[in-house]
């Protein structure tokens, strides 16, 4: 096993052209340490959504890798991302997961910062420091970079590197567009609670596996309900369909492209008709129908968010064999209340620690982690569908959501795992 003391030879752990990946990629503490440095402390990491801090003074406490950051809106309405660390002796200055405050005050020695980061209070400073002591040099430190797309906020702890635009690329942005455009005003609201799961497995298990649902999820609530009604489970039919694809969105991002399946029929109710009418008004017939039938983007964006209707899921890596997922139920703005209530009931029945889908994913990930401890044959096979990949330009989609020039394969193929690992290797080997 790769240990902390050995130099890491990333390329020796991948034989992707043959469809093999070494278990160390998922189990080694040394690999995990390098992931924290190379991916989470260097690249772009999603921290939050600006709808979480709508009012002046609002803040939320988040993580970039192992580092605590405050995302807040100052008294003038500007959004900041501050390192949660007093400039004096390094205590954390913010203790609550969310709140509203004009100041961050360090309880240790009373240093006090305005919510725009300016240091305004140093108790008993007179005579204690040089006369030219300049408080303005001791503001809260912002994360070196912050960037947003459609209200999604990312931070990077490195001042240099690709822009967020380059990190996302056009396809991932279209996935975000499709997620938000389920609202007739194109906006989501991420302040309606979240389920949180801890998983004792490697953070790179992020789904996007179209092969597993009929087996892993044979007891999800939807299947149970179908069985009671004497209907077959749709999960079994999915693998036989040729119109659904696994798709490499570029830069490690990927999706199960279920947009053509018409997965989310609306009930025949007044609120559903009002929602549909507002979507037709906002986007026109063709584009609205496409959005509504798509069921959302079902996309996984490296390194730490997943857009699976109705949830925005955010991942936090803890150790080689532990990570956390927060499932934020994203409300749609500008829709009848019942639309969002239905989204709550949908995520509760499937996600979180007591839903019917996530729990069995957790179980499979943890069995996987256990299996990878066996060292006799450490190679995993992710070669499904290697011979049926092709480049697709997604010409059937409206231009607003078109995934151009992406490698695709059958829905059940392991193209997604290979795409993730190619990106991963490039990050790990960045000088």
């Amino acid at each position, binding site marked *: 096993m790769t240990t902390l003391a050995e130099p890491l030879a990333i390329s020796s752990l991948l034989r992707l052209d043959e469809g093999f990946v070494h278990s160390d990629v998922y189990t080694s503490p040394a690999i995990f340490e390098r992931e924290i440095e190379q991916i989470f402390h260097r690249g772009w990491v999603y921290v939050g959504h600006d709808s979480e801090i709508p009012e002046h003074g609002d803040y939320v406490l988040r993580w970039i890798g192992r580092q605590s950051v405050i995302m807040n809106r100052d008294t003038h309405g500007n959004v900041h991302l501050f390192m949660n660390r007093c400039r004096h002796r390094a205590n954390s200055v913010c203790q609550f997961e969310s709140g509203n405050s004009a100041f961050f005050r360090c309880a240790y020695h009373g240093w006090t910062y305005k919510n725009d980061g300016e240091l305004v209070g140093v108790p008993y400073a007179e005579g204690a420091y040089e006369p030219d002591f300049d408080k303005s040099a001791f503001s809260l430190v912002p994360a070196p970079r912050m960037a947003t797309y459609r209200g999604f906020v990312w931070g990077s702890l490195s001042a240099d590197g690709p822009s967020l635009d380059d990190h996302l690329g056009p396809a991932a942005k279209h996935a975000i567009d499709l997620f938000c455009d389920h609202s007739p005003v194109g906006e989501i609201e991420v302040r309606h609670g*979240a*389920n949180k799961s*801890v998983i004792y497995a490697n953070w790179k298990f992020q789904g996007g596996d179209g092969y597993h649902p009929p087996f892993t999820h044979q007891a999800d*609530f939807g299947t149970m*309900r179908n069985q009671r009604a004497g209907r077959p489970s749709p999960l079994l039919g999915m693998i036989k369909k040729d119109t659904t694809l696994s798709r490499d969105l570029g830069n490690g991002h990927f999706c199960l492209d279920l947009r053509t399946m018409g997965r989310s029929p609306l009930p025949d109710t007044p609120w559903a008709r009002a929602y549909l009418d507002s979507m037709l008004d906002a986007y026109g017939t063709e584009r609205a129908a496409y959005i509504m039938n798509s069921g959302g983007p079902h996309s996984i964006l490296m390194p730490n968010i997943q857009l699976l209707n109705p949830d925005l899921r955010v991942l936090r890596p803890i150790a080689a064999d532990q990570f956390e997922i927060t499932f934020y139920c994203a409300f749609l703005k500008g829709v009848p209340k019942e639309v969002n209530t239905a989204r*709550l009931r949908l995520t509760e029945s499937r996600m979180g620690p007591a839903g019917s889908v996530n729990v*069995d994913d957790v*179980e499979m990930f943890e069995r996987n982690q256990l299996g990878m401890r066996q060292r006799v044959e450490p190679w995993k096979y992710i070669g499904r569908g290697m011979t049926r990949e092709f480049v697709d330009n997604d010409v059937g989609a409206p231009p607003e959501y078109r995934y151009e020039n992406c490698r695709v394969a059958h829905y059940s193929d392991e193209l997604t795992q290979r795409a993730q690992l190619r990106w991963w290797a490039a990050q790990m080997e960045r000088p």
Partner: protein
Amino acid sequence: MIAASVPIAKDAVEAFLFHEARLADENRYDEWFALWTEDVRYWVPANIDEYDPDEHVSIVYDNRDRLQDRIDRLKSGGAWSQEPQSRMRRLISNVQLEPPARPDEMVAVSNFVLGELRHGREAVYFAQQTHRLRLTAGGLRMAEKKVLLVKNNEPLHNLSFLI
């Protein structure tokens, strides 16, 4: 009526709570489901203890249909996160009766500690639970059960057993 016979009511309520806990502990899904009235509100809040469940996500928010899904799933043989099943025991204490809204109902607030063991990993859950119990022709039944986990804002491992 209940006020005049509080000791008797409390004995009956405690007996019910202990019985319900035992059925849940022993994964006796059908017998546990049979403790419910036709109307069901089974609620485990997420993040905070009090809110409008149509405005904020919950860990569990089951009506009868969703609870039936949950029971069917656990009995299906394909609920892998309960294959093997959790071993559990819970201790119930601090039982207090509160004024009910209906003459045929009783409301009981209690605390529990649940120890759960699965795949060699032990988990402990502290909680307050509120039961709204109704006197029916078949005896006491649960119309509502609300479980306030102390750690409902922490990342939780699978709660795929009956909590």
